C-alpha cells in the first residue's frame, strides 16, 4: 500500500467508526467504545508507518503529493477547476504522528473517565455519542493535517468547529456547558470569517487552493497585486491569521477557550490542548510564506506576545484546576504565535509538538485528579494527593517541569529556542522591546503558576477530608496514557540533545530531527533576512538560555515558598497588589463584559429592536398617548374658561376619541394577520403600476 492510501486510511478509519457508532453503537458490547479507540489506534499505526518512511528518508524536502480533480468544468468550456489533494511532507507526517498518538491515548483515557466508579457508562446512551463525536473530531483533524490545499483544510476546519460545539456542550443538562458551547462556536465563527476572506482572495489571485500553487504564486509575484490599498498578500495573510486567532484563541478572540473547560476533561485534552487549537497554529505554519511575504508577521508577533503574557497573569489567580490549564494553553499558544511572528517557522512547529504532548498529559492528569476527587475541580479543596495518586502525581510533575522549562525536558528545548529567537529579534529591532518582555515574563510566570497547581493539589495536608479519604489511584486505562505521554516529555526524543541547540549530541544523524526536517518554505527575497535571524538567534542562545533557566528556577522557588512550604503568605502577597488590579484580573480584563455588554447589547441588539422601539415610542407613546395628553391639557383649559359653552361631549370627542381612533387605525396596520400584510404588499405593487404609468 502506498503512503497516500495510508494517509487516506488514517482519515477514513475514525470517520467510519463515527458512522458505525451512530448507527449501531448502542447495540455493540461496551457500547462501542472499543471500536472508536481501535479505529484511532489503526490510524496511529498508519501514521507510524508514514513517519518511519519520512524519517528514514531524512530529507528536508521530502514530499509526496497527489491531487484528484473534484469539479472540472473545462469540458463545458468554463475554466473552473477545483482539486482535492493529499500532501505528505515532514510537517504533516510529524503532525499526523502527534495527533494520532494523543488521540489514541485520549480515547483510551475516556473509556475510564466517562464511566463512573462502578464502571457503568456515565450518561446512558450518550456514552456512545461521546465516542462518535470524538471519532468525527479526530478524523476532521487528521483530514486537516493531510490536506494538500486550503479548501479541504477549510472543510475539515469547519467540521472541527461543529465537533467542538457538540463536545463542549456534552453535559447538556448544565446551562453553563450549553452557553460555553455556543460561545465557542460563535467566537470561532468570527475568526472563520477572516479565513474565508483570505480564501476568497487566494482563489481570486491564485486560482487554486493547493499549497504548491500558492507558494509558486508568491515566488512569481502574483500576490503583489494591490487590494484594499495594500498588497494582496497582506490581505490574505491577515485574513488567514484572523482565522487562527479565532481557532487558537488568541487575543482578542480568546474568550471562548476558558469557558470551553465546561466539557468533559478528555475533550479539553483532545480539543483544547493537543489538537484543535493546534490546528490554528498548523494553518499559519502552512501559510507562513504568505505571512512573511505580506509583512503580517509584526502583527502576528504582538498578538501572540500579548496573549501569552496576559493569559499567564490570569492563570495565577485561578482556583479551578482546569481553568489554570486552560489559561496556560492560551499562554503557550501565544508563545507559538509569537515565535512565528518573529520569523522562526521551525521553532513554532517544535513548540506545537512538544506542547501538545505535555499539555495532553497535564489535562488528562487533571482529569484523573478530578475523577479521583469525584468531580471536584476546585484546587482549594484538594491537597496532599501525592500519596493517594502516585502515578498521576509523577506524570503531572514531569509534564509540569516540561512546561515550566526545566532543563532536560521537552518544553525546555522548545521554549529555549523561542526565547532565543525573540531575544535575537529584539536585539536587531530594539523598537520591539516589548516582545522580549512578554516572552521572558511569561516564562517566569508559567513556572510559578504551574508549580502553584502542583503544590496546591499534591502537597501539604488535604483540605477536604471526605473527598481525600475516598480518593484512590485510577484504573490502568486512565494512568497508562499519562505514563506514555510523560515519557515523551523528555528533551532527547525531539532533539537528541539536552538544550535543543545541538551540543551534547547523542543520536548521530537523528540529531535535532524536528528542526532539521522542517525548514521554512523558500520565498524570494527573504533568504537574507532569515539568515540574519538564524545568526542573531545563535548569538542570543546562551544569554537567553541562562535567563530562562533563572526565570523558571525563581518562579518554581517562589511558588514553593508560597504554596509548598508556605513560608510566605499568599494573602500578604496579594494584599500588596492594588485592588483595582485584582478586580481587573478577576473579570478577565473585562473582555466578556466588553463583548456582551457593549458589542452585543449596545450595537447588535438595537438594530433588531429598532422597529419594536419605533412602534412603542413613536406610534404608541408619541401619537396615541401624546394626543391624549394634549387633549387632557386642552380639556382642562376649556373647562377652566367656560364649562358651559363647550359641550363635554365635544371635548371628549376631539380630546379622547379622535386620538384613540387615529392611534388604533395606525395600529390596525400591524394587526399580526399575515394576509393583511400581504394585501398591503399587493396594493403597494398596484400603486407602483399606476404611478409608473404601466396602465
Amino acid at each position, binding site marked *: 500500500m502506498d503512503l497516500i492510501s495510508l494517509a487516506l486510511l488514517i482519515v477514513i478509519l475514525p470517520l467510519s467508526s463515527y458512522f458505525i457508532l451512530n448507527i449501531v453503537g448502542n447495540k455493540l458490547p461496551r457500547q462501542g467504545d472499543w471500536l472508536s479507540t481501535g479505529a484511532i489506534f489503526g490510524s496511529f499505526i498508519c501514521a507510524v508507518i508514514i513517519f518511519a518512511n519520512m524519517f528514514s528518508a531524512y530529507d528536508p524536502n521530502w514530499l509526496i503529493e497527489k491531487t484528484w480533480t473534484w469539479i472540472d468544468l473545462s469540458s463545458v468550456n468554463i475554466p473552473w477547476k477545483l482539486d482535492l489533494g493529499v500532501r505528505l511532507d515532514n510537517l504533516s507526517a510529524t503532525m499526523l504522528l502527534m495527533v494520532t498518538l494523543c488521540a489514541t491515548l485520549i480515547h483510551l483515557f475516556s473509556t475510564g473517565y466517562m464511566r463512573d466508579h462502578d464502571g457503568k457508562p456515565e450518561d446512558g446512551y450518550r456514552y456512545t455519542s461521546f465516542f462518535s463525536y470524538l471519532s468525527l473530531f479526530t478524523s476532521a483533524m487528521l483530514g486537516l493535517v493531510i490536506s494538500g490545499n486550503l479548501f479541504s483544510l477549510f472543510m475539515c476546519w469547519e467540521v472541527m468547529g461543529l465537533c467542538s460545539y457538540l463536545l463542549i456542550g456534552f453535559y447538556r443538562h448544565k446551562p453553563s456547558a450549553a452557553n460555553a458551547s455556543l460561545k465557542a462556536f460563535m467566537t470561532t465563527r468570527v475568526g472563520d470569517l477572516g479565513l474565508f476572506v483570505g480564501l476568497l482572495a487566494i482563489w481570486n489571485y491564485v486560482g487554486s487552493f493547493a499549497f504548491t500553487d500558492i507558494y509558486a504564486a508568491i515566488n512569481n509575484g502574483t500576490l503583489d497585486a494591490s487590494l484594499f490599498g495594500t498588497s494582496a498578500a497582506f490581505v490574505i495573510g491577515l485574513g488567514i491569521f484572523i482565522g487562527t486567532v479565532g481557532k487558537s484563541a488568541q487575543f482578542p478572540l480568546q474568550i471562548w477557550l476558558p469557558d470551553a473547560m465546561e466539557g468533559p476533561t478528555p475533550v479539553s485534552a483532545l480539543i483544547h490542548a493537543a489538537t484543535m487549537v493546534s490546528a490554528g497554529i498548523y494553518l499559519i505554519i502552512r501559510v507562513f510564506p504568505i505571512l512573511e511575504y505580506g509583512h503580517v508577521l509584526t502583527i502576528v508577533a504582538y498578538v501572540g506576545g500579548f496573549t501569552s503574557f496576559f493569559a499567564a497573569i490570569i492563570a495565577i489567580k485561578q482556583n479551578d484546576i482546569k481553568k489554570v490549564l486552560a489559561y496556560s494553553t492560551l499562554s503557550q499558544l501565544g508563545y507559538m504565535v509569537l515565535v512565528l511572528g518573529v520569523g522562526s517557522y521551525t521553532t513554532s512547529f517544535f513548540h506545537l509538538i512538544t506542547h501538545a504532548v505535555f499539555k495532553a498529559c497535564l489535562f488528562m492528569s487533571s482529569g484523573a485528579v478530578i475523577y479521583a476527587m469525584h468531580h471536584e475541580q476546585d484546587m482549594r479543596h484538594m491537597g496532599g494527593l501525592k500519596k493517594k495518586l502516585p502515578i498521576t502525581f509523577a506524570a503531572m510533575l514531569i509534564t509540569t517541569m516540561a512546561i515550566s522549562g526545566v532543563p532536560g525536558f521537552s518544553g525546555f528545548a522548545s521554549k529555549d529556542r523561542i526565547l532565543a529567537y525573540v531575544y535575537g529579534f529584539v536585539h536587531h529591532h530594539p523598537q520591539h522591546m516589548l516582545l522580549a518582555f512578554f516572552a521572558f515574563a511569561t516564562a517566569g510566570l508559567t513556572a510559578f503558576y504551574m508549580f502553584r497547581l502542583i503544590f496546591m493539589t499534591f502537597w501539604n495536608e488535604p483540605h477536604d477530608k471526605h473527598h481525600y479519604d475516598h480518593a484512590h489511584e485510577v484504573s490502568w486505562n486512565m494512568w497508562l496514557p499519562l505514563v506514555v505521554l510523560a515519557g515523551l516529555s523528555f528533551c532527547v526524543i525531539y532533539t537528541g540533545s539536552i538544550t535543543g541547540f545541538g551540543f551534547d549530541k547523542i543520536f548521530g544523524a537523528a540529531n535535532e530531527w524536528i528542526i532539521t526536517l522542517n525548514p521554512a518554505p523558500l520565498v524570494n527575497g527573504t533568504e537574507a533576512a532569515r539568515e540574519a535571524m538564524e545568526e542573531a538567534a545563535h548569538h542570543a542562545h546562551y544569554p537567553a538560555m541562562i535567563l530562562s533557566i533563572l526565570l523558571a528556577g525563581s518562579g518554581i522557588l517562589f511558588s514553593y515558598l508560597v504554596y509548598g512550604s508556605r513560608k510566605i503568605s499568599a494573602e500578604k502577597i496579594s494584599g500588596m497588589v492594588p485592588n483595582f488590579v485584582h478586580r481587573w484580573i478577576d473579570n478577565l480584563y473585562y473582555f466578556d463584559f466588553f463583548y456582551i455588554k457593549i458589542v452585543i447589547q449596545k450595537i447588535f441588539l438595537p438594530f433588531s429592536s429598532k422597529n419594536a422601539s419605533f*412602534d412603542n415610542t413613536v*406610534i404608541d407613546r408619541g401619537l396615541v398617548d401624546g394626543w391624549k395628553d394634549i387633549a387632557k391639557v386642552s380639556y382642562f383649559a376649556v373647562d377652566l374658561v367656560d364649562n358651559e359653552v363647550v359641550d363635554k361631549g365635544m371635548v371628549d370627542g376631539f380630546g379622547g376619541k379622535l386620538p384613540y381612533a387615529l392611534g388604533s387605525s395606525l*395600529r390596525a*396596520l*400591524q*394587526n*399580526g*394577520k*399575515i*394576509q393583511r400584510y*400581504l*394585501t398591503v404588499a*399587493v396594493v403597494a405593487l398596484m400603486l407602483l403600476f399606476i404611478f409608473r404609468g404601466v396602465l
Partner: protein
Amino acid sequence: MEGGGILAGLATNPEAYLLFSLLLFSFGIIATLARKNAIGIFMGVELMLNAAALNFVTFQVLRRGVVANETWLHGHIFSLFVIILAAIEAAVALAIVLRTFGSRQSIDPDRATELRG
C-alpha cells in the same frame, strides 16, 4: 397551419401563454389574500409560482431567436429551480400548518396574531 380558425397558431403564440399565466397569477393572489385557511393560502402561492415558471419556459422557447442566440436552457433550469423550491416550500409550509393546528386546533391565519404590533 391550414384552416384558420381562432385557435390557429395558438401553440406558438407567446401572448396566449403570458395571458394564461397572468390569469393564474391573479387567481393566485386572490386565493392567497382572501382564503381563510392556511392550506388555501398555500395553494394560492403554488398557483403564482407555477405561473412564473411557465413564463420562464415560454420566453425561453418562443423568444429564443429574439433575445439571444443562447444554447443553454436558462428558462428550463429556472423553472426546475422553481419546482424544487416549491417542494421545499410545501414541506415547510405543511410542517408549519401541522404545528399551528396542533397548538391552536385551527389553521385560520387570522387567529395567529402573536406578531401583532
